[in-house]
Each structure stands twice: as structure tokens, then as C-alpha cells.
């Protein structure tokens, strides 16, 4: 497992960074006044 992580560490790091960047973009892009119907998590 350690060898696997060492071998692919940059792939894993870049993947996590890409997910993080997408999340930040999603947060900024949707951080606006409510435009959707009330949505409830019932349970």
C-alpha cells in the first residue's frame, strides 16, 4: 500500500485538489439569494 501511495502520490494529490477546486467554484457560483423552491430534508 505504501509503495502504491508513493507511486501515485501526485495523481492522488492533484485529484483531491481538483475536487477541492470544483467545490470552491460550486460554492461561489451558488452563493446567491435563494432561487429554488423550499427544499426540506424530511429525515
Amino acid at each position: 500500500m505504501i509503495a502504491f501511495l508513493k507511486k501515485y502520490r501526485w495523481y492522488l494529490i492533484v485529484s483531491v485538489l481538483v475536487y477541492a477546486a470544483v467545490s470552491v467554484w460550486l460554492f461561489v457560483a451558488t452563493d446567491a439569494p435563494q432561487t429554488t423552491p423550499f427544499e426540506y430534508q424530511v429525515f
Partner: protein
Amino acid sequence: MGLSRVFRGLLLVLLPIVVFLGLGEVVLRLYLTQRIFYDVEMSRYAQLLKIESPNLRIGHIHRPGSSAHLMGVDVAINSAGFRDDERRVDGSDLRRMVFLGDSLTFGWGVEQHDSFAHLLETSLDEERPTEILNFGTGNYNTTQEVELFVEQGLAYQPDKVVVFYFINDAEPVPKKSRLAFLANFRIVTFYWSRMKQLAARLVPGQTFREYYAALYDDDQPGWLETQAAFVRLAEVCRDHGIELKVVLLPELHALDEYPFEREYRKVANFLRSQRIAVLDVTPAFADVSEPQSLWVSPDDAHPNALAHRRIAAASREFIATGGASR
């Protein structure tokens, strides 16, 4: 060898996702100590204060005696399962009313003493000793409200029942999701909610205007259930000598040119055809040029304390008049 290659491929796909979700959960929870998100708070409301009802037509009820800090305010549920003071079930000499409704009547996002139910109780009590029992429960539609009243409200022997109706009350009764456990993860709630918001901008028919308007097509099951629920409530009230009134509450996105005039006219016409008194308080908001000034927060269009005061003022006389007195 083949299996090992497949396993390695899966690991390469899943590992960054798991690491990202774990880190994202931690970062989001830290951020949430500084900022309130409506969707996350609604999810917490469901987790902390709601339980399943044995009555499938009610769906969910409040956990009696529970409490939480939600949307920046303290919420306490009494022993009967309502966001209200403790009330005696047996006879009362006071004029007694039951308010039925959803999260707006519940007072989502405002202190209990700022809710229109409390304001109306205080105001009406000055005129004549009055007790208002607030049965408002988040996510209820009319069918659930009527079921709850029949199951619990009749025992209180009220003189009057007032239904506070909102545009989304014609939605079908919600069902528990099999993926409910995912609500434990804030990052999942965040992604689910934000993706829906994004879709609302990109996919036609996803905005609140289109969604709410479509609920009132003649063949919509939710609207048909709503009408049946009102007919049943009217019968129950007639049988028990209880006066029934309905107040239509405004949707707070556009108030000077209200987008749901047609839908509310349809609701009002139906209620009048059933000889149910109805008041639409939307016109009392027509002078509001900046609707967001009445919102709980920018991402939550529930009425804030200012809006609750307007609702109370606009509906007071309608609620106070008529009816038998004790």
C-alpha cells in the same frame, strides 16, 4: 494479475474521493461554526427534532421535549410535540384556537416570541383571554396538517382552527428517503443542495416560480389531496362546532408583482366554494420593494421577524372576528 489491475484502478478512483470527502467534511464543519447555511440547518432540523409518525398520512412529527439551536435561534418542542408553551389538554375557559401550518407557522428562523402565532396570541389576549396552540410543523402540507389536527388537535376542544396556507402546501406528502443516513455528512448535504441550485439555473422548469405554479394544475395529485383535506377538515370542524378559517401566506420573492396571484385565486375560490372563510394577506406586502428585507437570510426566503409582524397585523381582525365564544 487481472484482479490486481482492477483493484488498483478502483483504488485510484475511490481513494481521492474518500480523502476529499473526509477533508471536505472537516473543513465544512469548521466553516459552519462561522456561517449558517439554510440547507444544512434544515437537515439538522430533521435529524434533531423530527421522528417518524406511526400515521403514514402524517409522515413525521416533532420529537416531544426536544430542542436545538437552528438557523441562529433556539427551538424548543413541548411535551405534545409542538413549538409552543406547555398547554393543558382538558377544558380551558379561554378562547382557544389551533393554528395549523408548515415551517412558516412553526416560526422557522425566528425566535418563538417573534412568530406570528405568538404575536397574535398576545394581541388577541388583550382583547379577550385567548390561547393559541401552534401546531406548525416544518415540511407539512395540508393533508398532514389535517391528519395531525384530527389525531391530536380535537382533544384540545378549540373554538377556532386557522390554517396558514403557503404556496408549496399542495405538494404531495413527502416520503422518508432510503438515503437519509447521508444527511449525517454535511459535505453531502452541501453538494446535493448546491447541485440542485445549479440545475435550477440551467434546466428549464426548475425555478421556484415554475415549480410552484405547476403544483396547481388540475390533475396534480398534491393539489387534489389538498382539496380533499380541506373538505375533510371543514366537515370535522362542522361536526364539532369549530369555526374554520384559512389565511394565505405570501411567497417572499416578488411582492409588488406577485407571481402566484392565479394560484392563490384558485385556492381561495375553492375554499369559498366549500364555505370556508379565507384571507390572502399578500396585498399587505405589496409595498415591499426589496423582498429580501423580509427573509430570514439571503439563502432562506422564510419570513423573518419583520415579516411575521406584518402577517400578524394583516390577519388579526380576520382571525379575531366571528366564532363561538366560551
